[in-house]
């Protein structure tokens, strides 16, 4: 192995080791430490000047206390469960909104498609924060939606949507919609039209041809899109804190507050480790789905 190849592999490898893997070791270590009123606010810290005894003391002081604490306080249980619920419901809603759009795009005239693709991708490039912010003005009690509904006369009292889970669902569907549309569109666009014609020739109605032929064939796109929405939605912080108010409990927000408001770093680290363990399952499933698609392509 020559030197050039070693440096080429070595530089990105070392970078990721130092700034990605080592920090996880540190999170794990701090999740086993105790809270302390000091800087940094946890104990023990490794003191190498005391030699071997220092290292022994250091490992002796680590324990699973914070994890036990997480299981005892039902705030954390509720936060994990409610994050899972919110992520699952909003993934389903995103699918319901995104599928017809992807379908419409795939069935549109080919010369329109690049333009439609650009229109879907454009919001993805614009600031996430601004797209969430745009909904505050729409959903608030004296916001544009309530003004409009009152003016039309559908409602007589303003709706309370801001600071409820509904606002969080809307926020997630809105910001993650491109992630759902693009993979579904990719599978639908590749689909062989003659299959549909065959189904219709054999006496299927257009609707049942859709359920028997199109929908199953777009399954891999649906699965990919759902994971692309579900995984980031689970750890979401910005949307619940701007639209959800204090009534919406999500684990990303709990972690943030544990860290910035309570300054309890060991508990925040334990919260992070458990969130990671929960995420491992959907991530592995997603990876499996992607591998299967790649095999199907070749």
């Amino acid at each position, binding site marked *: 192995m020559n030197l050039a190849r070693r440096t080429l592999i070595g*530089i990105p490898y070392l970078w990721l080791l130092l*700034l990605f893997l080592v920090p996880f070791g*540190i999170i794990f270590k701090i999740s086993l430490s105790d809270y302390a009123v000091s800087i940094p606010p946890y104990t023990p810290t490794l003191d190498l000047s005391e030699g071997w005894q220092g290292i022994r003391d250091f490992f002796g002081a680590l324990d699973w206390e914070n994890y036990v604490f997480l299981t005892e306080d039902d705030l954390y249980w509720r936060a994990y469960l409610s994050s899972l619920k919110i992520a699952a419901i909003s993934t389903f809603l995103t699918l319901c909104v995104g599928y017809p759009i992807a379908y419409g795009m795939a069935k549109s005239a080919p010369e329109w498609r690049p333009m439609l693709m650009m229109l879907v991708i454009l919001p993805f490039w614009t600031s996430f924060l601004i797209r969430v*912010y*745009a909904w505050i003005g729409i959903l608030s009690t004296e916001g544009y939606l309530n003004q409009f509904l009152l003016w039309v006369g559908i409602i007589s009292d303003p709706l309370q949507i801001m600071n409820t889970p509904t606002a969080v669902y809307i926020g997630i569907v809105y910001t993650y919609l491109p992630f759902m549309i693009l993979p579904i569109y990719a599978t639908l666009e590749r689909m062989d039209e003659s299959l549909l014609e065959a189904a219709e020739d054999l006496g299927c109605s257009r609707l049942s041809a859709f359920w028997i032929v199109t929908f199953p064939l777009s399954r891999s796109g649906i699965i990919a899109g759902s994971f692309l929405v579900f995984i980031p939605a689970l750890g979401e912080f910005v949307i619940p804190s701007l639209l959800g108010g204090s009534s919406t409990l999500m684990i990303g927000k709990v972690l943030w507050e544990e860290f910035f408001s309570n300054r309890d770093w060991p508990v925040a680290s334990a919260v992070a480790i458990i969130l990671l363990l929960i995420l491992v399952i959907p991530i592995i499933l997603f990876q499996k789905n992607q591998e299967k698609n790649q095999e199907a392509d070749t």
Partner: protein
Amino acid sequence: MRRFSWFNATALTMGFAFLYIPMVILVIYSFNSSRLVTVWAGFSTHWYGELFRDQAFLDAAWVTLRVAFVSSTFATVLGTMAAYVMVRGGKFMGRTLFSGMIYAPLVMPEVITGLSLLLLFISIGLDRGIVTIILAHTTFSMCYVSVVVSSRLVSFDRSVEEAALDLGCTPFDAFKSVTLPLIAPAVIAGWLLAFTLSLDDLVIASFTAGPSATTLPIKIFSSVRLGVSPEINALSTILLLLVTIGVVTASLVSKRRIIQQKRDEQLAEQAPQ
């Protein structure tokens, strides 16, 4: 023959209305003269003036641009190297770990990435500021760059590289004069992606920024928490305008390149006759 379908037309209209109406409202109300954001009181560019007189916003914008420029450049170099290693590197020790470390940050919740980097910086005693934000942004965006570049590396014909090597190029020369021009569009796209990700990031920047450095998203977030404000509307409009110009230009350029390529191919086919 394609039939015009009312269902598809409705789905597309409603879908794009949902995607774009919130942003259009934001832009319209940035020209509202009233401080009460939800009540229209006449056209005015007052809030744009306010925004440009607000030193805190200008400072934050300057920090954000510097961070985004430096981190996306580092990320592009490191990400391209990582992609090259993954696609052309062959077998080496710890390859599985390497590919895991490239893909994991893409799905990692930002709160965890931010927390872990902050704890690292504190335990090695690095003062939080612009440098730590740059390190953090480089780390997660290099993974995005590497994914974009490696998809391009996989798809092009390897024999041109081999031809260059057979004709006496050193591997480095072959990379510089053959591979790099071929993957250039993906490298540029990767840089742009890294740049936007950095401009946009709130969570990781909040963890890794110290009191000395505030980025634009951190500033926006702290003022948005207090409610809707007309200055933020004006700022959003400017950002939306810049992104729209960027995306439209990029798609026009790539469209022109495709047309040019087709024309070249046609000419090449006609040449022998």
